[in-house]
């Protein structure tokens, strides 16, 4: 694929828990950057879905996070490191339909327990690490075709 990427492109975002109004800013920025670079539509869609779901989880569950993305000629890496409650049972959290979202968040249409599975499905590599009481780190890699 003819990609206009000769160098490494990266950016970082500060995400604040509870700040629903800013949800989607990081994913929208990444989407715009990938569009500008002429990246394949399917890849852009996958990156947008995965990044937005990660943003939402920080906003719903954590206090704050740093989202960092790196675009190279081969792939996109998105890493989200949060300060939050952590996840006790990652295997359970990864199950479709599992959610601890409170009622008021469910009323907004979040809490279907689909976010983490969506992130995994849309990444070529998916890693999640969590320490209860400290935070959760998610790293996703999407390869260019």
């Amino acid at each position: 694929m003819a990609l206009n990427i000769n160098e490494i492109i990266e950016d970082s975002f500060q995400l604040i828990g509870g700040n629903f109004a800013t949800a989607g800013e990081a994913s929208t920025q990444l989407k715009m950057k990938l569009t500008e670079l002429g990246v394949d539509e399917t890849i852009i869609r996958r990156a947008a879905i995965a990044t937005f779901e990660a943003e939402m989880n920080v906003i719903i569950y954590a206090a704050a996070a740093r989202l960092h993305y790196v675009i190279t000629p081969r792939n996109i890496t998105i890493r989200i490191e949060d300060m939050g409650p952590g996840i006790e049972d990652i295997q359970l959290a990864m199950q479709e339909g599992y959610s601890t979202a409170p009622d008021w968040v469910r009323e907004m249409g979040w809490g279907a327990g689909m976010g983490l599975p969506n992130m995994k499905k849309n990444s070529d590599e998916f890693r999640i690490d969590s320490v209860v009481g400290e935070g959760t780190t998610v790293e996703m890699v999407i390869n260019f075709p």
Partner: protein
Amino acid sequence: MKLGDIIEPLSLDVRTGSSSLGRAVTGVYVSDLLSDVMANSGEGNVWITLQTHLNIVAVAGLKNLTGIIVVSGRNVPADVLQKAEAEKVTVMTTQLSAFETAGKLYQMLYA
């Protein structure tokens, strides 16, 4: 079918993004679960929902949806309309229920 073609038959009130009425409607997705819409809606779809908060704008923008129809006469807050206008997301409202809206669109698209 263009987005503009569904306005009159469904008596939609176009609240924002009226410059996109020439866009094609590729299909319709009905859901009030946002992660479900992120996962399963298609590019160019019209999204029928009763959700009215800010996140619907981000979802529609990120998924390149053709528009959002907020059903059952629900009030869309001013800050949501403002964000939608700024991000060129078409928000439409109707007094019809999700079922009636989907039924009419199904007729128009597939019957």
